[in-house]
């Protein structure tokens, strides 16, 4: 292949983000929607960890706005939350990368809680009721992290390092 070696890796990133978008749009019953992990944020966090010089704040911003438009949320809500997550992961990616998966998940939990808190704050500022249940996706997100990490690492290795 004469094409630059960046191509497959770029494709892997886009593909995984698209998959996250599909998961995000999947219709789920109301009780499950409250527990749905923030898929796009998790995939974004992975790429910030694995490819910090390719996926950063700007990508987080773009993805957040896209998710807001897709799900009918106030425009900028997810952008704000995802930018914070991306910045935290980018700042600590060298230390996070070498930790065991369980510890990564444990560290991700408060980060995702902040993510949900930002979403809840914006929801509250628009005059809608805010409940403690809005923190549930942080828990489910941290729980699926190891599995997601392994899946995406596999995808990244197949696409070339």
């Amino acid at each position, binding site marked *: 292949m004469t094409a630059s070696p960046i191509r497959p890796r770029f494709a892997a990133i886009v593909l995984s983000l698209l998959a996250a978008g599909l998961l995000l749009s999947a219709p789920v019953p109301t009780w499950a929607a409250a527990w749905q992990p923030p898929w796009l944020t998790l995939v974004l966090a992975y790429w910030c960890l694995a490819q910090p010089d390719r996926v950063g704040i700007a990508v987080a911003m773009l993805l957040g706005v896209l998710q807001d438009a897709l799900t009918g949320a106030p425009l*900028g809500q997810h952008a704000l939350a995802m*930018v914070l997550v991306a910045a935290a992961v980018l700042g600590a990616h060298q230390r996070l990368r070498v930790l065991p998966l369980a510890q990564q998940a444990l560290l991700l939990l408060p980060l995702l809680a902040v993510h949900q808190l930002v979403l809840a704050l914006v929801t509250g500022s628009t005059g809608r009721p805010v409940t403690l249940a809005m923190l549930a996706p942080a828990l489910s997100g941290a729980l699926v992290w190891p599995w997601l990490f392994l899946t995406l690492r596999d995808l990244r290795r197949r696409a070339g390092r």
Partner: protein
Amino acid sequence: MPSLFRRRPSLGLRLLLAALLALVLLVVDQRGPRLVPLRGALLTVLHPLQQAVDLPFRVWDWAADTLRERRALRSELEALRAENLHLHLQVQTLDALQAENRRLQALLDSLAQTPQPLRALIASTVKVGLDPYVGQIQIDKGALQGVFVGQPVLDAEGVVGQVLHVAAQTSQVLLITDARHAIPVKAVRSGVRAIAVGRGPAGALDLPFLPNHVDLEVGDVLVTSGLDDLFPADLPVATVSSISRIGEGEFAEVQATPRGRLDRIQEVLLVWPPEPDMGPPAPDSAAPPPGAPTP
């Protein structure tokens, strides 16, 4: 190759700029319609993603429709015939009532308009995951079909909500139960006017700021009053479900439930308001005609 010496603004600065941009977006989006085209464009671009998710359901529905048993179809046909007959009967009595109404109004020399037939379009709900904190549904008609932001959305039971965001082929509808939605209503029995405000995901409506002696009873049907220039008048909205007059304040606590399960709807009606030239004159041209009695 990642270069070690590429110059980039620091992480903190990038975070600050992005967070500020997000905040600006939030404020502008909440304050007015300026971001409507941007949101519409983004949703239009992303809609294939939702269609991909919705596709299996569509295929399933199609297959179920195609493979339905003759017996089931026949029984459904019977049921529909019976319902059609029933509705025809109702319409006949309505015709008589309308004629009587017109006669009475002519007697009163009233300027009130007889209700215009509404132009409507049927839309199906698209089953996709949406922000769970916003009471909303998504439908399969958009700007290409003439849908506009603020358009009233009904179903067979009554008012569902209004269009919130429009993309080319799809739109998102804010339900009347969302905490940011309010709709002016009046009680059919007593004519009491109120504002029905959504209470969030619980699926009930609040009627705030009604005095303790308000003439409302549990079971009263609330219809749109038409005072908002958005929803046509006299469409059913909800039924009063509870009244509590023993609060400390001077206001009664009145709650109402919408007519149907709004988040389980399959099909909705998009309604276009009657032509403006049929309606009452605009407020700025409503100067009193010569010879009108002055108050």
